[in-house]
Structure formats: structure tokens, C-alpha cells
């Protein structure tokens, strides 16, 4: 057997960061494609029937706008966790992660409130099916984000405070989610 000179096994280079970045690319493709189909169907509906939003259905603007504002908070809290971790400030890092998870849960709650206020049945036509599919996928991504935050917090509480990469990755995830929601907000809730 030919032997090459050996070296200590190198630590993987930013594996979590790269992995989450790829996941973010996939999330952007997923949401982007769904919104593209949404825009296409909306245009076709307006061209044929002159309307897209079903009669009697109103999009509640307050909770949808509050959700958008909440994402600013999520991004700030996510970055706060990174900032604290770099200064070995464990209490603040954990607090920041807790705040991130809390606001993310509030966003999920606000989405549920939007469903309640709209009173739209999932079987009430094309708009309803697409609305629940697109926003439902967003909720799934939000739940994945809350799980990610919880895992990051437990790792940090568990003593892996030197592992700042997961917090940076965590912040990137929420930045991406903010951009995704901004697109949904504009196309689904503002343009209608």
C-alpha cells in the first residue's frame, strides 16, 4: 500500500455554516417557486374573472404587519446571541436565544390568528388551497426555526459555549426567514 504523509485530522471547516447556507438556498427556492406559481395563478384569475381574493374574504392587515415587524426583532435577537457568544457572555446569549424562540412562537400564533380572522375554508376554491399551502409551508419553516433555536440554546447551555458557529448559522437562518416572510407579506398580504 502506498503511504502518503499523514497529518492530524483537520476539523471540518464551518460545516454547520455551509450546511445551513445550503438549507437556506433550498428554502428560498421552495418559497420562491411557490410565490411564482401564486403570482401566475393570480394573474390568470384576474385576467379571466377579474378578481383573485374571494368575495367576503378580508386579509387582516394588523397581524400580518405585526409579523413583519416581529421579524426585525427576531433578527436583532439572533444577532444579539452571536454578539454575546463572541464575548463569552453566556447569560445574555441564552437570553437572546430565548427571546428569539419566544418571538418566533408569537409569529406562528399570529399566523394562526390570521387563519382565524380570514375564516377561509381550505376547500373554498383555488385561492384558499394556495393560501393555505403557501402560508402553511411558511409555518413549517417557522417551526423548524424554533427547533433550531432550541437545539442551539441547549447546546450552549450544555457547555458548548465555544461553538459559536451554530449561533452564526442560527442567525443566518432567521435572516433568511425574514426575507422569505417579507416576500410572502408583499405578494400575499399586500398585493392580495
Amino acid at each position, binding site marked *: *500500500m*502506498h*503511504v*502518503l*504523509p*499523514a*497529518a*492530524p*485530522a*483537520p476539523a*471540518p*471547516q*464551518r*460545516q454547520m455554516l*455551509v*450546511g445551513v447556507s*445550503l*438549507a437556506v*438556498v*433550498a*428554502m428560498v*427556492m*421552495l*418559497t420562491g*417557486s*411557490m410565490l411564482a*406559481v401564486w403570482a401566475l*395563478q393570480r394573474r390568470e384569475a384576474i385576467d379571466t374573472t377579474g378578481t383573485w381574493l374571494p368575495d367576503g374574504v378580508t386579509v387582516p392587515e394588523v397581524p400580518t404587519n405585526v409579523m413583519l415587524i416581529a421579524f426585525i426583532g427576531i433578527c436583532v435577537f439572533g444577532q444579539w446571541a452571536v454578539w454575546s457568544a463572541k464575548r463569552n457572555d453566556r447569560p445574555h446569549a441564552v437570553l437572546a436565544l430565548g427571546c428569539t424562540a419566544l418571538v418566533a412562537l408569537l409569529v406562528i400564533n399570529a399566523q394562526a390568528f390570521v387563519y382565524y380572522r380570514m375564516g377561509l375554508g*381550505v*376547500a*373554498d*376554491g*383555488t385561492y*384558499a*388551497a*394556495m393560501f*393555505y*399551502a*403557501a402560508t*402553511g*409551508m411558511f409555518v413549517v419553516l417557522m417551526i423548524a426555526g424554533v427547533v433550531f433555536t432550541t437545539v442551539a440554546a441547549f447546546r450552549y447551555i450544555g457547555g458548548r459555549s465555544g461553538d459559536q458557529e451554530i449561533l452564526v448559522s442560527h442567525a443566518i437562518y432567521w435572516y433568511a426567514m425574514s426575507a422569505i416572510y417579507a416576500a410572502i407579506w408583499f405578494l400575499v398580504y399586500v398585493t392580495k
Partner: protein
Amino acid sequence: MTTIERSPETVEVATGGDRDDAIALEEVAGAFTSTDHKVTGRLYLAGGLLGLVSTVIVNVLIAVERLDGADTVLDVEVLPQLVDAQLVGLVFATLLPFSMAACVFAVPLQLGARSIAFPRLASTGFWMWFGGLVLITIALIGNGGTLGGDGDAVDLFIAALGLMAVGLTASAGAVATTIFTTRAPGMTMRRIPPFSWSALVFSLGLILVMPVLVGTLAYLFVDHRNSRTGFGGNEGIFVWAGWVVTQPVTFLFAIPAIGMLAELAPVVFGRRTPVRGALFGGLALIGVAALAGVTQQNIQNLPWAGSDLNVDDLETKVRDLVPFLLFNALPILGVLLVLAVVLQTARPGEGTRFRFAPAILFAFLGFGMILVGMLGNILHAADDLALQGTVFEEATLIYVVYGAALALMGAVLHWAPKLWGPTLDAGKVTPLALLGVTGTILAAFPMYIAGFLDQPGGVSYLDDDLVLWNIIALVGHVLMAFTVLGFVGLLLISRRSDDSVGDDPWDAQTIEWTTTSPAPRDNFVDVPVVHSAEPLLDIKTAATSNAASNDGSTA
């Protein structure tokens, strides 16, 4: 880490001395729980081979059905499911798992990594894919599919397809992350082996394409489950999601098969890969097919209204040609670049040798079949030829999938020593390559002709002149069935063999051949340091030079 550790004492007590059975049981249990990338790769391979066998059988059934274009041999009710099984089987049960298998088991070894990145994710990806395969089979049996009559089974079909797509994306993420982050010291991106580069293009392509499919399927599922108003009900499934089982997206899924030829040529001819930049560029160009998937443009037609090329209409013709060439010709340009580099590697010259290995025959013939499929796709996209809706499209897919399967069988032959020690008997497996390529040509080329003769897609036709071409296609599928079954048989025999072929049986150049055969749990005892793209060849060349200089000084 394998969660069930081997403990001979425990095994002895637990089984009353029947140790072999206990170890076999332990291996099966380990396969379910292991996060070793070689185990996950083998599982994908087993799934891909199972899918290939099943799909070839489905193809044989369809070909039998086509022998008489008017009457049906099988129950007419099952024909829509059979056609769906063919399409999904060719792409999701054969091409994708086969390509993923090669990437998962070979890439970490080629990079000098001790493990794949996110091994549990890669393993979970396999089980999601496999779960989707089982569910999609149940859905088709239960009258589901794109033209199924049972609403719940159709919903299950859509959900299962989405599950497979998510699983494949997860495994692709693990492969891509490995290539970006877990390379041996000194192995820059320019030094990674050609197959690993093709795996990167393939994985990134999947990460771009599969979420688009998942999003579309989410709409289709919710709509079909509830209102069936927005996406055309059952028939809308293929309209909205059919692009993933047609060209040119399938070219993206076949990239590892194309990369296999580029990987093997330097080994067989004993030379360094020349112009690696062109080779890498060529493989990446094929990835432009991903763009077609992302934009859901499965066909960029070339209307070419009025074939006479007049100057007045030049702008229109250029406008037609640009997207047409982007979607159809760029992947072929990429394949030709790869072929040019391979031919340059094989060019007679100082230091060139030819050491035959069955793997290169499989890879070369498979590559050729993929190229023929790609060329066929260009014709298919030209409206003037009126090939759309005919069996021509199916023939293109069969060329690509059977060709990729052949090339990836070459990958199995090449890396079998690292996977389980022995390799397949060269004398017995070589004829299978010839049988396989004959089967592919006979299965697909007559359908090219039948497409020009306007035989519609599906199983029925009216023109009796088409019977001959359908008989030949049946023979082709049967030959392919023999090829696959023969390969699986030889594979099983080789796995039971104790004949080790050594650590470097092919006199290769890349670092996976510096570790033992089969590769240990963590791949490498010591992580090798890399100073060139062909580190093992460096050592061999230096050893030869030293031996020559020693001989000279002795004389």
C-alpha cells in the same frame, strides 16, 4: 457511529454459538441505524438496483402491451399506473438513487474525509426516499398516480413524491457540505477528483431543483385533496410536476454518471487529467439543466416558422434560438468538453498505457448512451419535427436512464474493493456491459423511429407498421433485464467471496486507494496530506524515478 457495536462474546451467548447468523442479523440491524456513509451509500445502491429491476420489468410489461397496438394484454384499468410507474421508476427509483449512491459512498473517501458531513441527515435522507418509494408503490397499486381513479391514492402519490424529493435534497445537502468543508489537508477545490466535482454539481443542482418540485407538489396536494379547481385535478399533476421526469432536468441527475468516465480515464491510461479546468467547466455546464428545472421549462420549443432562413425574420429566429440553445445545447457542449478531455487523456504519448478494467467499458458505453439521449432531446424540442407527444420522448429518457445506470454500474465495479473488499469477476461482468448497451439501443432507438412515424405516447397505436419497432424495443428491454439481473447476481456472489483484490487494484491516482480494502469505519487511519490532484501518482512516479536512479548509480 454504528449504534450496535459488535461484541463476539455477547453474540456467542445470545445465539447459542450460531455466530454467523448473529453477525448477519447484526449487520442488518446496523444497516438500519448506521451513520457510516458507506452503509448509507450501499443502501442507496440496493434501493437503486431494486428500483432498476422493478422499472425494467415495468418497461417489459409496457413493451408487451405495445406488441398489439389496438388490443390490450393487461387489464386496461392498470395501464395509467403502469405508465406512471415507468416514469417515476426511471427517474426517482433508478437514476436518482443510483447517482446518490455513488456520491454518498465515494465522495468522502475521495476527499480524504473520515465521514460524510451530517451523516444522520444523509441516512435520514435515504430512509425518506425509501419510505416515499414504498408509499408511491402502494399509491399506484391502489389506483393512484396522475390518472388514478382513487382520490386518496392520488393524494398519497403526490405526498410520496414530495417525501422522496425532500429525502434526496437532504442527502444532497450532506454531500455538498462534505465537498465544501471536509477535504484532506492540501486538497483545494481545484484538486478534488473529477467524480467529486460532478457530485458537487449534481448535489447543488438537486438543492436548487427539488425544493421547486416540493413547492409545486404542496400546491397540488392541497388543491387535489380539497377543491380540485386550480391545478386541473389529476391531469394537472403531470402538467405542473411532470418536468422533473423529462429532459433536460434528467441530464442534471445523470451528471455523476458522466463524471465517472472522467474519473476512470486517467486510471486506465495512467496519465494525469489534462486541462482540468475545461473538464470541470464541462461538468458544470451540464448543470445548466438545473436552470430548466428551476424555471419549470421542460421544453423550449423551436418553432422556426417557415424553414426558409430569410434575413427579414432573422431577429425572430435569433430570439428562438437563444433560449433553445441555452436549455438544450449547453448541456451537450458540457458533455463534449468532458469527452474532449477524456480523449486527450487517452492520446498516445509518453507515459500512456492502457490497463483495461470493466468499469471503464461500462462508464464509456453509458456515457455514449446519455449523449445519444441528449442529442435526441434537441430533435424532440423542435416543433417542426412534431415529435412531442410521441414515444420519442420516452426513448430519450430511456437512453439517459439506462445509460446512466450502466455508467454507475461502472462506479460500483470501480469502488467495490473499498465498499466490501472483493470486486466482480471481470471475465463475467464485461459481457454484461455489451449486453446492456445492446439492450439500451434496442429498447430506445426503435422508439426514436416510431416517434418519427407518429406513434403516440402511452401504450396504444393504430398503424400496423409500428409493430416491428415495438417488438425490437421489447427485445431491448428484455436484454436490459438480463443485464441488471446478471449484474445483481455477480454482485451478490462477489460479496460472499473472500478474495481480496488488494488496496490499490487499479493502479489508481486518488487518495481513497491509500486506505485498506474494504475501507475501515473511519475511512483513513491517518488523514493523508495532498500536494497535487493526483497524490498517489506522485508517490508512484517518485518511487519509479528513485528506482531508476538507483539502478543507474549501481550500474
